[in-house]
């Protein structure tokens, strides 16, 4: 077959053009890359999170929304960074002092004087009352005020003078200060949060109109969304912040860039394009980054937990012995070491490690305690020839990190007992939620981030027949209800801890849920970044961050 003889080589003109293009590209890239280093007064942070709906505290009920509300707003009290969020760890913020009545039904806060909103309006007790009342009255069905039950807890709010706020409660609520420290309770600027507006939404090109928050260490000066997803945010230091004279925030400008997934975020921090990467980098990448010298890995206590839920409407999971046997068969160490490479801790109670009142209640059942498993299941009619069949469900669309891997490890550890067979079922999050509501999943895995940092928020939403109704697990115990209600109202710290001890003991006995693990928190930064605090509150405190170099 003949082909046309090609002309010899490339012409000189073409060669020159190609060479010029390559030189321009390289020079241009180098020049452009020089622009990518950040000045010392600016921290660029990368994340895979995003604002789920808005920055309105009456509506926002997601991790990242609360993170930005904390950076741009302020509450009456705060929790000391690095503490265990115990009763003595609350520090003044917009309130300088507080007290509660002996019966726990009245809380009085004295407010800080001389604080101004960004529009020059003075901060007074009116703004506090307005903010909380607004959340309760709007009663956004998506929002935290209904979700946490502010209206059930707070009866009325009084403002006897400009610098005093008095909360009257429906019942003594021991974690009331924790509630006041949570971002849902932060004070809005009434001029930017009309009572009749259901939600203050994102407004294209107008950061001020997109958020009612004020008084925080930062002001939101830029917020860009594309197709409903965050692309970039900019926070600039608030000169009117009450603690500005204390040197806060430590860095004037924070730029937040949003990445699609953990791999893209890892690439960015490894390439030095960002100063901080926080949520979410995978455990594998963290382990790899720990070996590198161009980044620093920070690790701390996490407050995120995952647990198994039993649907007690489905036999034999209505039998506590079966539930205890499954709890004893779980090998938590296998999960934390295999799936999370040691970056998670085994959890033996619904109250997380490091929190006041925590007890390792499930340790009495043991981990991979197969003698106990076989003995207990034999008592209810299961053995090697007639195995207990467990349909274990997990969420498969990435709502929880590593769910399929966790489920696989659970299957392996339960089946190692020799008397259990596990059938795995995955479902995406919308289907998973529907199945939960339909009560069709026999055993399923869920996760939990706290609304406020107190054992109550790890107990009431799970073990109380009313508070835990969202689980649809059909667990109800009058004795447990009573214990939980008493623990919510008990103001004496010692008595409260005793009640939580009883709750956790009963939890291990009834085993309606099986705590699995508690995630650590980690962040990766360039070596010049300091001020990262990762504690039980899960608060990301932008205002503490600073750089020691460019």
């Amino acid at each position, binding site marked *: 077959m003949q082909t046309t003889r090609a002309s010899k080589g490339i012409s000189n003109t073409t060669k020159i053009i190609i060479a010029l293009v390559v030189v321009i590209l390289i020079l241009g*890239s180098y020049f452009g890359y020089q622009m990518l280093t950040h000045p010392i007064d600016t921290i660029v942070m990368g994340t895979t999170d995003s604002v789920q709906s808005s920055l309105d505290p009456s509506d926002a009920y997601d991790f990242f929304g609360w993170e930005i509300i904390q950076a741009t707003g302020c509450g009456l009290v705060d929790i000391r960074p690095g503490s265990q969020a115990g009763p003595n760890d609350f520090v003044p913020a917009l309130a300088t002092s507080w007290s509660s009545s002996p019966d726990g039904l009245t809380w009085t806060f004295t407010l800080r004087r001389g604080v101004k909103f960004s529009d020059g309006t003075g901060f007074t007790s009116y703004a506090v009352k307005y903010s909380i009342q607004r959340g309760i009255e709007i009663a956004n069905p998506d929002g935290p005020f209904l979700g946490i039950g502010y209206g059930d807890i707070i009866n009325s709010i009084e403002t006897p003078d400009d610098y005093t706020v008095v909360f009257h409660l429906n019942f003594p609520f021991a974690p009331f200060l924790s509630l006041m420290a949570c971002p849902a309770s932060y004070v809005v600027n009434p001029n930017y949060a009309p009572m009749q507006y259901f939600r203050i939404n994102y407004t*294209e090109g107008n950061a001020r109109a997109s958020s009612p928050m004020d008084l925080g260490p930062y002001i939101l000066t830029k917020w860009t969304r594309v197709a409903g997803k965050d*692309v970039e945010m900019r926070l600039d230091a608030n000169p009117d912040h009450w603690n500005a004279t204390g040197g806060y925030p430590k860095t004037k400008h924070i730029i937040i860039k949003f990445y*699609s997934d953990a791999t893209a975020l890892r690439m960015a921090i490894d390439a030095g394009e960002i100063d901080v990467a926080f949520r979410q980098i995978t455990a594998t990448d963290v382990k790899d980054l720990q070996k590198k010298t161009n980044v620093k890995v920070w690790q701390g206590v996490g407050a995120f937990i995952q647990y198994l839920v039993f649907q007690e409407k489905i036999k034999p999971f209505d039998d506590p012995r079966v539930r205890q046997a499954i709890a004893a068969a779980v090998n938590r160490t296998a999960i934390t070491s295999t799936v999370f490479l040691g970056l998670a801790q085994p959890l033996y109670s619904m109250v997380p490690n490091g929190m006041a009142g925590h007890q390792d209640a499930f340790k009495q059942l043991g981990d991979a305690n197969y003698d106990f498993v076989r003995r207990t299941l034999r008592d209810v009619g299961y053995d090697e020839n007639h195995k207990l069949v467990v349909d274990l469900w997990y969420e498969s*669309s990435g709502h929880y990190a590593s769910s399929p891997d966790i489920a696989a490890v659970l299957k392996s550890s339960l089946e190692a007992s020799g008397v259990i067979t596990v059938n795995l079922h995955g479902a995406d999050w*919308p289907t998973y939620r529907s199945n939960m509501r339909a009560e069709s999943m026999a055993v399923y895995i869920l996760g939990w981030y706290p609304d406020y940092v107190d054992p109550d928020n790890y107990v009431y939403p799970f073990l109380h027949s009313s508070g835990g*109704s*969202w689980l649809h697990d059909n667990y109800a115990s009058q004795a447990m209800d009573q214990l939980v209600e008493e623990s919510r109202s008990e103001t004496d710290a010692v008595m409260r801890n005793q009640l939580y001890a009883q709750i956790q003991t009963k939890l291990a006995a009834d085993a309606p849920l099986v705590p699995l693990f508690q995630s650590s928190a980690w962040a990766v930064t360039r070596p010049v970044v300091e001020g990262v605090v990762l504690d039980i509150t899960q608060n990301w405190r932008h205002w503490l961050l600073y750089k020691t170099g460019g």
Partner: protein
Amino acid sequence: MGSGSYIATRILMTIPTIVLLLTFIFFFVRVLPGDPVLLHFEKQARPEVIESLRHQLGFDRPILDQYLDYMLGVIRGDLGKSMEDFSPVSEQVLSAFPATLELSIFSMIIAVIVGVLLGVVASRSYNSSADHFLRFFGVAVYATPIFFIGMLLQLLFGIGLHLFPTGGRMYPGMEPCGLSFGGTTIRTGLYTIDSILEGNPVKFILALEYLFLPSVTLGLYLSGIFLRLTRSNMLDTLFAEFTIAAKARGLKAKTVMYSYALRNALLPIFTMMGLEFAALLGGAVLTETTFSWPGLGRYLVQRIAFRDYTAIQGAVVYFALVVSLTSLVVDVAYSYLDPRIRV
């Protein structure tokens, strides 16, 4: 039928296509398991609250009423509000379109240049080791997962050589403003064009830098198709009678290759370009995810995951329009490229 009538007819035929497709999608998404109302309530379970939101979203109305309301809205240009954050779907789609368009254009340029050039080289050196290598290259690059190509480029050029950024669309604060005059701003949303309009060479270079890796990733991946297609078509035209006749008349090899063979081989390639470009305008999910490119590719995937019915429907309207218009442009352009074809 004149070309004007042809174009008008094709445009009008787009309407029933979209109506049929939208009807199918409207009912199909509602059959999928998963309740979008429940997704708003991470922890809240009070039935009256859930039903209140269901009522607010109109899901408690008869399905046919919901359908008719939605279709009437589409006729008015209202694609409804996203069920996730309640912002207008049309705004969401339009906000992401420029990023998708820019990536599509540059990726297509790279795909065509690389694919056609290499295809020509392969056909010229038919049955040689170069030809065999290029054929292998065309298959390999198309078979390699695109995110893998992307990650390799990120590791080499981003982390290793620090030449290009690994993700995002622009350096913070350097988004081009376009052309401003007398209180009016002309902004296309394409950063390369807008930086030229603004007269800012630094922003132009930065826009190209951020475009480089995702465009090369997608372009290389698609070049495999064009390489194989060009080679195959070139071999057909190189051995066609008119080419042999041209050689016999003593025309230069270069003239025969490019003015006769390649020119005639380009017609099917042009059709493929149109199809691929329309597909790219639907968004390149994996490339956008790998490079955190804020385009439409991830939009539909995310909306399906949230069971955001209105956003899914809106995205389908957009895709149908894009594909219809692109194929129309290809057909009309065809008639100019090939005098034998008349619309």
